[in-house]
């Protein structure tokens, strides 16, 4: 039986109208997230992963950003058709988000407890006292020792790991259906990262939410996600289940990325390298966007852009040498 999707992003295009020209940051991106599933989204800086997440939350600054096409269906309703007031009731309530920087995403002049209970009062229609109780309970849930005391502390009194726990407590306080985690552990040390990922996994199962995990760290994806979407220069270039992607990457970009990570096991050899760097979004190469860096690039790759090919089993790839047809313009 086909699982029901919680979120479906269809043909999403986001353009930035800047002084230097129009940048297509996200180019006809489609993907979906099933209920209770963790979807990993990977790619390097500037590939459009964060812009996609901000588009879902309708948090893109406009101008310069504009969503020029597409639909974002959340529980069957198109978020792009919602009014600002309707969005405010969804954000932080049914969809919440945690960011990379736990230092800058908390308000420094309010205690952490007050910041959590504010969200609860706003969305859950609880009284002040009930909201405080719920906030303390959330702090306990995310493993903060001494939550009654910590409730009254300010963000600067906490370590980076503790602050990220507070962010998670705040994000989960209204039982969201979808949690968007944008590089949630990038700023943290490895042992703290392990704690936070473990916490996110346990809480996800407990409250039954879906997670969109955005990261550049393939190791983090391998350990937490069930399916993975790989982005490059604003496009989805590959999608697969986690096992398939790491075992048998189809797109040369994915394969190159996997080979360029220094491994802990095995003998040291020279690292594989993807030559060159990500193209300037104002000046994308003709044809396939990866062709200047691709070891397998053929003539057609320089002339035409490949379309995203559905290969069955939820697997998609955008590459001529894997059988993608050229994209219709």
């Amino acid at each position, binding site marked *: 039986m086909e699982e029901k999707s919680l979120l479906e992003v269809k043909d999403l295009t986001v353009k930035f109208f800047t002084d230097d020209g129009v940048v297509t940051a996200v180019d006809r991106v489609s993907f979906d997230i099933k209920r209770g599933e963790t979807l990993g989204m990977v790619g390097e800086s500037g590939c459009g992963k964060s812009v996609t997440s901000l588009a879902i939350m309708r948090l893109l600054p406009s101008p310069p950003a504009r969503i020029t096409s597409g639909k974002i269906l959340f529980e069957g309703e198109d978020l792009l058709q919602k009014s600002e007031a309707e969005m405010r009731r969804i954000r932080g309530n049914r969809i919440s988000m945690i960011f990379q920087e736990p230092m800058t995403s908390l308000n420094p002049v309010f205690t952490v407890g007050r910041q959590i209970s504010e969200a609860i009062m706003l969305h859950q229609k609880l009284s002040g006292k009930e909201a405080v109780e719920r906030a303390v309970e959330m702090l306990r849930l995310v493993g903060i020792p001494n939550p009654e005391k910590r409730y009254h502390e300010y963000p600067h009194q906490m370590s980076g790991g503790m602050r990220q726990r507070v962010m998670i407590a705040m994000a989960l306080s209204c039982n969201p259906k979808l949690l968007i985690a944008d590089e949630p552990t990038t700023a943290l040390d490895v*042992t703290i990262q*392990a704690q936070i990922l473990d916490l996110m996994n346990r809480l996800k199962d407990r409250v039954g939410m879906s997670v969109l995990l955005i990261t*550049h760290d393939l190791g983090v994806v391998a350990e937490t996600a069930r399916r993975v979407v790989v982005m490059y220069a604003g496009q989805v270039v590959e999608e697969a289940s986690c096992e398939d992607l790491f075992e048998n990457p189809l797109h040369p970009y994915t394969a190159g990325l996997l080979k360029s*990570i220094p491994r802990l096991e095995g003998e040291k050899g020279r*690292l594989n390298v993807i030559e060159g760097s990500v193209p300037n979004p104002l000046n994308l190469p003709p044809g396939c966007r990866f062709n200047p860096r691709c070891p397998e690039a053929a003539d057609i790759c320089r002339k035409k852009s490949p379309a995203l090919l559905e290969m069955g089993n939820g697997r998609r790839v955008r590459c001529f040498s894997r059988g993608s047809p050229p994209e219709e313009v």
Partner: protein
Amino acid sequence: MNQQKNIIEVQGLVKWYPVKAGVFQKVAGYIKAVDGVSFSIKRGETLGLVGESGCGKTTSARCMLRLIEPTKGRIIFNGRDIMRLNREQLRKIRPRMQVIFQDPYSSLNPRLTVKEIIGEVLAFHGIARGKELEKRVKHLLEMVGLAPHHMRRFPHEFSGGQRQRIGIARALATNPDLVVCDEPVSALDVSIQSQILNLLEDLQARLGVSYLFIAHGLNVVKHISHRVGVMYLGKIIEVTESDEIYRNPLHPYTQALISAIPIPEPKVRRRKILLEEDVPSPLNPPEGCRFWTRCRHAVNICRREEPELVECAPGHKVACHLYGR
């Protein structure tokens, strides 16, 4: 290996920062950023230093170069104790030891061209000027994989990876014996990281330079280093060959650190050792072994006595009571 081959030897390095409090700014305590660190690096060798933020790896490196004045310790560079040198003597020795910084965006002056950035070093140390300087800059740019015409450009015209190459060219301009690489790839994308790591390895093979390589990513450090030292709260708690540290980590903290690294293989499910809580404050580190508050194996002696860094197998030193004399 005999002693002569060491390019640098650091013995008992200590850096305490006074913490002042009250109206009269009396010294209320010390932050023990580095508290008795000893290591040596051989010619052409890479020593990696890993540890979490605040463990003292950057402070150790900067003290070693006397960019920060150490509180105590001996630093023998090329056979000379550089703790005894005055400013003038120190300036003469500086070209032999250089640094590559983490952030390629803030470590290059935005108002200077690449030629000026690299040429400044050559001119300051009296290595070259005029036509000769230009030739040297071109040569250095080629060595790090950039083109000679890049010389006239400004830092903002380059990508992060290219900027890091400029930083490397600047560090190598004086033909140093030792380069401190302080998180040189942490700010870069994965595909660019491997380019820079390969470049650093090639340059070492060609020039015979030694690296002190600092990073928090153990996989990166293991890849590039010959030996790895693990730091925790201002101390080196384990040091050995880089393969050995992964295959046979002895200190409970090293074991936890290695198990915490996410590996890109979804089929392999490793048992993670999750450490409880955070690193204690360096203002008031625990008595005895500094790790005992988070250690699964802590026993009574750990709370009382600080373990010393002792060799428990050839070339493998560890500071832990589990491997006591």
